């Protein structure tokens, strides 16, 4: 498969995520859109890893070329899991205080 396909697919997913962040007001959905963007990046990383592994197929260390990319994806998932746990805790906190998950109520930064 040409790498371009994967690049465009990832960009498309990423931009859908961005459009979601921009258009929605529900904090949980915005959060999910961020997860979607993370996954788009993950997909691209795996694709690049396989691209490099294909290029190095003839080399003696072919077994390790490209593993970095996939390990990065692994770590991104680790961080995302931690982030979601904290982020959802914040959203719960926010709901408890203002009885809404609408980000437009979060305008205290103005003051």
């Amino acid at each position, binding site marked *: 498969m040409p790498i371009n396909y994967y690049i465009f697919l990832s960009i498309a997913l990423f931009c859908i995520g961005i459009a979601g962040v921009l258009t929605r007001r529900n904090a949980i959905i915005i959060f999910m859109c961020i997860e979607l963007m993370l996954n788009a990046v993950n997909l691209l990383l795996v694709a690049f890893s396989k691209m490099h592994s294909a290029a190095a197929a003839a080399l003696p260390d072919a077994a390790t070329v490209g*593993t970095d990319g*996939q390990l990065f994806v692994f770590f991104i998932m680790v961080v995302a899991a931690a982030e979601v746990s*904290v982020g959802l805790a914040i959203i719960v906190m926010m709901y408890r205080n203002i009885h809404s998950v609408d980000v437009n109520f979060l305008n205290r930064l103005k003051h």
Partner: protein
Amino acid sequence: MNITQILFWLLSVTALFGAMMVVTSRNPVYSVLWLILTFFSISGHYILLNAQFLAIVNIIVYAGAIMVLFLFVIMLMNLNKNAEPTRGRWIKFAGAISGGCLLLVLVAALRSTEVSSKSVQVGVGEIGLIKNLGRELFTNYVVPFEISSILFLSAMIGAVVIGKKD
């Protein structure tokens, strides 16, 4: 068009459609479900790329743990009704337009780069197998791996501290 290509297009269309539905669904529960569909199709892509370990981790961690957490929160807050007030039409329009513009710009910019001529190894290759990744992870990447456990610990404590009633 062989079977791999057919599968690629099928999974891509599913992923994009799922993503669109996540953004456009009015009910958050539906959004979560569509997102799970998207994650499954991305896992399918991983399998197609012979990254079996990541495919499984993706399903377990994302589609399993994280999305369940989302569902729990939504249900806890009783948000599963169509309660979201609509945003101003102009804001929505501007958001969609900016997203589209970003898509256009990125596609135009990356259309004819150096890497675009390269191709991806599909269906074969052993680096995605758990044996190879595990060896790397516990040799070269052992320090970040251990640090990530500390990250989890602190995230857990943070979540408890933030979430507890004061």
